[in-house]
């Protein structure tokens, strides 16, 4: 793979999608306002849950706020990259424009996963990072190199798991043509990631760890921030992320053999 070429192409993707989005100023402003209101609403909701009892599943409000911060960052990443690109796969397959992607001398997964960005998602990422710094202060977390490395590793793994899940569902469009509903279900499950895993019953905890690994996405990075995490959990998250990433890649290449293109 020619890395220089891919960087050059990605620079062009960034440029063209930013230029496309900036054609519609009002839409950007509405998206920005939505991001702020959504974060305020989520924090308000979380505070209501903690109003009667100071603890949920062994977590204090200040600690649960870290999960909210990580969720906001991940949601920002979803809105910036995954949502504009991966929902487009369904459109590409339904309308047959995937033909153009497949005939370009560039990796098709790279092309369809990174062609577009939604700049309003950046605000969510920034708000999440600000909230995370606020949480670090109020929880008196000591910032050191090993902590930062572990945080970066676990958050990167969360991004990989989320991307792979979404990409996997979108790929099934090659057979099922319409998979909007499955993507919506995935998004609804992501909302669950705003709460500590311990706050759910045992059976739900198993479900969200094994079947749909939402728990890995927010809870493990949050535990790292609070110094509550154990090594096996971090290693497990790295393993899950690697398996998911490789599987989604293999699945895409396998699915392309069944692509029949839309009729003209």
């Amino acid at each position, binding site marked *: 793979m020619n890395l220089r070429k891919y960087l050059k192409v990605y620079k062009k993707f960034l440029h063209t999608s930013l*230029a496309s989005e900036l054609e519609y100023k009002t839409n950007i402003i509405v998206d920005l306002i939505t991001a702020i209101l959504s974060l305020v609403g989520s924090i308000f909701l979380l505070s209501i849950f903690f109003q009667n009892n100071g603890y949920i599943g062994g977590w204090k409000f200040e600690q649960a706020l870290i999960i909210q911060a990580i969720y906001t960052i991940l949601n920002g990443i979803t809105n910036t990259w995954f949502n504009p690109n991966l929902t487009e796969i369904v459109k590409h397959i339904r309308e*047959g424009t995937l033909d*153009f992607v497949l005939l370009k001398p560039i990796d098709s997964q790279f092309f369809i996963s990174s062609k577009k960005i939604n700049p309003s998602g950046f605000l969510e990422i920034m708000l999440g990072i600000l909230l995370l710094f606020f949480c670090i202060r109020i929880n008196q977390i000591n910032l050191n190199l090993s902590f930062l490395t572990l945080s970066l590793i676990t958050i990167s793994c969360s991004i990989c798991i989320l991307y792979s899940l979404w990409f996997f569902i979108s790929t099934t469009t090659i057979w099922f043509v319409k998979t909007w509903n499955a993507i919506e279900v995935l998004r609804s499950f992501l909302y669950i990631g705003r709460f500590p895993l311990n706050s759910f019953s045992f059976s739900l905890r198993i479900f969200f760890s094994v079947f749909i690994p939402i728990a890995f996405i927010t809870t493990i990075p949050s535990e790292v921030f609070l110094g509550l995490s154990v090594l096996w959990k971090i290693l497990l998250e790295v393993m899950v992320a690697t398996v998911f990433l490789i599987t989604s890649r293999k699945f895409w290449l396998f699915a392309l053999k069944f*692509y029949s293109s839309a009729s*003209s």
Partner: protein
Amino acid sequence: MVQNIIDVRNLSKSFDISSKEPGLKGTIKHFFRRQTKSLKVIKDISFEIKEGEIVGFLGANGAGKTTILKMLCGLIYPSEGSILVSGYLPFRRKENFLKKITLIMGQKQQLIWDLPPIESFYLNASIYDLDKFEAKKRIKKLSEMLEIDEELFIPVRKLSLGQRMKSELLAALIHEPNILFLDEPTLGLDINAQRNLRKFLQIYNKETNATICLTSHYMKDITSLCKRVICVHEGAISYDGKLDLLLKKLSPVKEILIVCRSEEDSIKLQNYGFTVKNKTKNEITIEIENNSITSSLKTILNNFDIEDLFINEPPIDEVIGKVLIKKDYDI
């Protein structure tokens, strides 16, 4: 000797198609128990195309033309048989193969809708690993050939269909491919835009010796660009050869409209033994076989007092239309 650039041997393609009975009952049945059957859309076809050739694929809707094109460019896996395009197996979609080909579809577009076409050109240039200087040079050359200039800087959504199609062509040709797959490139264009596009393709073929495989329902595209046609009928090749030979075979007669000076002469002509198609007062339309045109005209001019005479070719659409519904042409 000119090399074969496309070599297709015993190619077949089957698709699993699901069918549904009409009405609510049929819909429910279809939802719970989908009945699929394998449909062979391409049936054991073989052909070769030489470098620099322009070949037209003719056939009715659903005959299999687009499926053939998509297998040739590597989008669809063949079920049986072999395809070799420029020495590559298309469905492997190797980078060097993809740099040699392009696909243009009249009904689908790759340009970024909200941005001027120039942005899509530079994006494609980076995908094909062209530096900025080379990309600029090629854009300039192609835009001159396509006669587009200001349109390059206007958002695609504001361009007319003709301007958009020219921009699509430029985006698809920026990497200077030597094999072009064109699927109804003139669809929906007005007569002038169609003519300009055809002119461009002729020049492009002449200058670069590019091989062009074309499908179109506009007969003018086929007659002005293609010397050779491949007729596809229900997934099989019904004719592969020169277009003029096919036309001769399909229309062995010409229509002659003769204007006589007197009605008396036209009546005499009517009874002379020609096949009469139509007759008004002193005008008569007869049909004469191609191989006896000269002698028949000589007889008419020598024996009758003729005021005017018109030789008409049967309309090409009508002639080609016969190809679309017949199974085999042995020429």
